[in-house]
């Protein structure tokens, strides 16, 4: 269609106008409005563009060789893989922008409002353009623009110290990642005539194995740090909670997915797949991330940090699918490879929806109560029923409960892993079996985690004054959440309509064939390679039908319909207070004990006795913290190395002129010797 260029321009212009409006609008409310409008218009155009290419395969290509001429020019190209990720971006971007329009009102009195608007639009622009990049410099530029814009977004509430700290960690990790990617791409491009992806694809085939392996390791680390793979995830639980909530939704829902995009683009598309250990490594990284992510999420009392760790978990699940796909691809099991990749991709889309939803929900909670600490929340379901319902949908979806979308993609990942026995080597099959078990454990723990997140935050009695006074958020915020909640349901029930087109996304990459769907179209989900069949729509119908039937039966059977409201039973004690409720910490206590070896919790119990008698306790203070010790094992050495080096070089500049003169002479002598010695 000839519409692609106007759509593309509308997408870019929308964000540009949004950014410009945020900067130049005469009033602050106007800035907020233009920010939102630009973001939504740009997002909508991007959505249509993505659909167009994904469904009908309309190619879009744009070359601007004048821009960035020295580095190869700007080159944009949208294929199905890119279009899918563009869609993922926009599906979350539009509701988040809508939500953010109302949410960012709290920043109207501060210096941050206009930068927030500018950077939000730039961030969205970069996000939606990254999947279009078709040469190295365009990709890296947009990639870094994405990181930098989000760095500023993280710093929106920069008056807090921990926010600044988080921003720094984030930028350091992001930049480190970029550097690895730069190395990888340039290594790939070393022998190519240009840095265009088409040329890289051709050149990659001729590269020696060790170079290909190096490139793979570099991109795995580089994209892994963006995707939040353990142990490169440290920035994620710091930065995501620090950002404004609609930005967190975008970062957690969308930005980290770009790591998946990049890995697929390079490892599968440009390199065309590799030896089995590539897939195996990704698979292992997926298992570790999924499990550790959810285990740390469980221990969190901060709602947004919990969600951030849960993103680590879900990225792990995605990488399980992708890793399995690459592993199968390396053995030529194309149907299974396709299945694994489709599973990963579907989880990308699904996680974008429910994690976006949950972050928006946490934003609504924060908006209403001004706290993210779950120990101070509770009972919000009464004050903000709609938010609670949306959050519940998100929580159920992320826990993989049928018939919502998270269930479908986890099922697909299971199905892919169940293909393990078809691998020619039994030990690989066993690894797959182990991955299946760990995935199951992960989803069980995720359910536990979200029972905690929803139950402690929204149910029972409010644990603080803030929570007690909570009220429903403005309509725009509700709409933002509602849209994503609907998407969670629709992607679950309607998966049979969506999943087939995902096959086309990866078809052709790395020599994979187009995926053919089997089973009853539109009703059951079955693909070549799956050993099971499901029909989520039918399941949903069944799950709806049973309660209706029960209610009818109640009516017909003359069941007693009286209902009395009374106090919660308190062992005979009258007057229940929130202090008697189970806390978030207590909720996770059994699992903390079970995994104590991993958590190595620090506990600190201090009891103040009554001065007269130690049988009377005046107060008890209990403090327990979980520090990710393995992170300390990995990052502390790096930081201390940097420090040591920094101290060493400080010694060079010791202030003595004589020493400085000596350096000069030494430099002269050493270089003279070098020149003597080498010639």
């Amino acid at each position, binding site marked *: 269609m000839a519409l692609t260029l106007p759509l593309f321009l509308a997408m870019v212009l929308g964000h540009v106008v949004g950014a410009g409006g945020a900067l130049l609008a005469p009033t602050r409310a106007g800035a907020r409005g233009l920010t939102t409008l630009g973001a939504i218009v740009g997002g909508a155009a991007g959505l249509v563009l993505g659909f167009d290419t994904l469904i009908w395969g309309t190619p879009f290509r744009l070359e601007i060789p004048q821009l960035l001429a020295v580095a190869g020019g700007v080159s944009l190209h949208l294929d199905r893989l890119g279009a899918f990720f563009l869609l993922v971006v926009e599906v979350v971007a539009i509701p988040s922008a809508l939500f953010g329009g109302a949410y960012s009102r709290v920043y109207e009195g501060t210096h941050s409002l206009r930068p927030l608007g500018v950077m939000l639009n730039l961030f969205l622009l970069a996000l939606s353009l990254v999947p279009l990049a078709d040469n190295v410099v365009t990709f890296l530029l947009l990639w870094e623009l994405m990181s930098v814009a989000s760095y500023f977004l993280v710093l929106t509430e920069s008056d807090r110290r921990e926010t600044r700290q988080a921003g720094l960690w984030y930028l350091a990790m992001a930049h480190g990642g970029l550097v690895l990617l730069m190395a990888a791409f340039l290594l790939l491009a070393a022998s190519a005539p240009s840095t265009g992806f088409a040329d890289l694809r051709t050149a990659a085939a001729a590269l020696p194995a060790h170079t290909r392996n190096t490139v793979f390791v570099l991109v795995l680390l580089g994209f892994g740090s963006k995707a939040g793979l353990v142990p490169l995830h440290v920035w994620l639980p710091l930065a995501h909670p620090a950002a404004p909530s609609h930005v967190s939704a975008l970062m957690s829902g969308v930005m980290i997915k770009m790591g998946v995009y990049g890995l697929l683009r390079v490892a599968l598309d440009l390199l065309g797949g590799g030896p089995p250990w590539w897939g195996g490594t990704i698979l292992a990284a997926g298992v570790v991330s999924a499990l550790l992510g959810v285990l740390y999420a469980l221990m969190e009392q901060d709602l947004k940090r919990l969600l951030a760790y849960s993103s680590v978990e879900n990225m792990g699940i995605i990488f399980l699918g992708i890793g399995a796909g690459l592993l199968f691809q390396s053995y030529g099991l194309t149907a299974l490879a396709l299945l694994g990749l489709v599973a990963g991709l579907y989880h990308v889309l699904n996680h974008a929806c429910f994690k976006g939803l949950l972050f928006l929900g946490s934003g609504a909670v924060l908006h209403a109560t001004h706290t993210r600490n779950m120990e101070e929340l509770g009972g919000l379901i009464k004050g903000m029923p709609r938010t609670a319902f949306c959050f519940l949908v998100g929580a159920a979806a992320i826990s993989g409960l049928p018939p919502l979308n998270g269930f479908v993609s986890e099922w697909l990942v299971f199905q892919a892993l169940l293909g393990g026995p078809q691998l020619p080597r039994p030990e690989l099959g066993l690894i797959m079996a182990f991955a299946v078990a760990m995935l199951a454990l992960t989803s069980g723990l995720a359910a536990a985690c979200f029972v905690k997140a929803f139950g402690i935050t929204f149910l029972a009695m409010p644990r603080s004054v803030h929570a007690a006074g909570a009220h429903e958020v403005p309509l725009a915020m509700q709409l933002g959440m509602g849209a994503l909640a609907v998407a969670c349901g629709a992607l679950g029930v309607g998966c049979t309509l969506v999943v087939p087109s995902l096959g086309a996304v990866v078809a052709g990459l790395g020599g994979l064939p187009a995926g053919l769907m089997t089973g009853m179209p539109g009703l059951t989900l079955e693909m070549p390679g799956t050993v099971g069949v499901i029909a989520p729509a039918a399941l949903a119908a069944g799950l709806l039908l049973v309660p209706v039937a029960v209610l009818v039966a109640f009516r017909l059977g003359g069941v007693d319909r009286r209902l009395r409201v009374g106090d919660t039973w308190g062992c005979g004690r009258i007057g229940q207070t929130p202090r008697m409720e189970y806390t978030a910490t207590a909720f996770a206590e059994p699992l903390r004990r079970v995994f104590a070896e991993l958590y190595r919790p620090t506990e600190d119990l201090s009891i103040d006795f009554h001065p007269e008698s130690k049988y009377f306790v005046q107060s008890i203070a209990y403090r327990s913290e979980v520090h990710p010790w393995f992170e300390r094992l990995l990052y502390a050495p790096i930081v201390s190395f940097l420090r040591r080096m920094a101290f060493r070089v*400080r010694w060079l500049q*010791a202030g003595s002129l004589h020493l400085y003169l000596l350096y000069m002479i030494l430099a002269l002598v050493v270089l*003279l010797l070098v020149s003597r010695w080498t010639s």
Partner: protein
Amino acid sequence: MAATFSQLSVLGSSLTLLFVFVLLGRRGVPAYVNAFAWQSIVLAGVTTVVAYYGRRPDLYWVAGLLVVVKGVAIPRLLQRMERRFHAERELEPYVNTATSLVIAGLLVLLAYAISRPLVALSRLPTRAGMPLAMGLILVSLFVLVSRKKAITQVIGFLMLENGLALLAVLGTYGVPLIVELGVFLDALLGFLVMQIFVYQIHETFESIDVERLSRLRH
């Protein structure tokens, strides 16, 4: 004639090198100033020799300038400075006299080593002096490193410049006159600037001990 030329140039070069050893062997700044003045005059002599035997009349101008600027004017200014600061003795250098002399000797050997290709390539009668010029450069550098008083460092630097001039005269019969003039201008201005700073150091630190200038670090 070539032999005379060669012998004269080596003799002159040796003398200029010897004067730098005064800075290592003696403690009094007046002695340093004298050594520098004499070194400059000997250098002027070598330049004259090269001008005569090498048939480079413009080098007479250079020799004249050397005598006027480095042989007379700068030593006068140095003496004034030294009287002003009463900094007559260089106390406790970083390296003691004996070790300094040994190191200087080693540096001269090093100079021979690194200038071997020069001597081997050159057909000039003056080539035998070049390692000595190189030695002068290196030993002057050593003076700069090991001596603490600002004024000593200035003298060390001036001797370094003399070494460069010697190298230029012996190796190339002098660089083109226009360059030579520029070099002289720079040398003079550089010295004046250094003098200003020595005064300023004395003003602000109440000493011209360079060791005290170690507030700026890291």
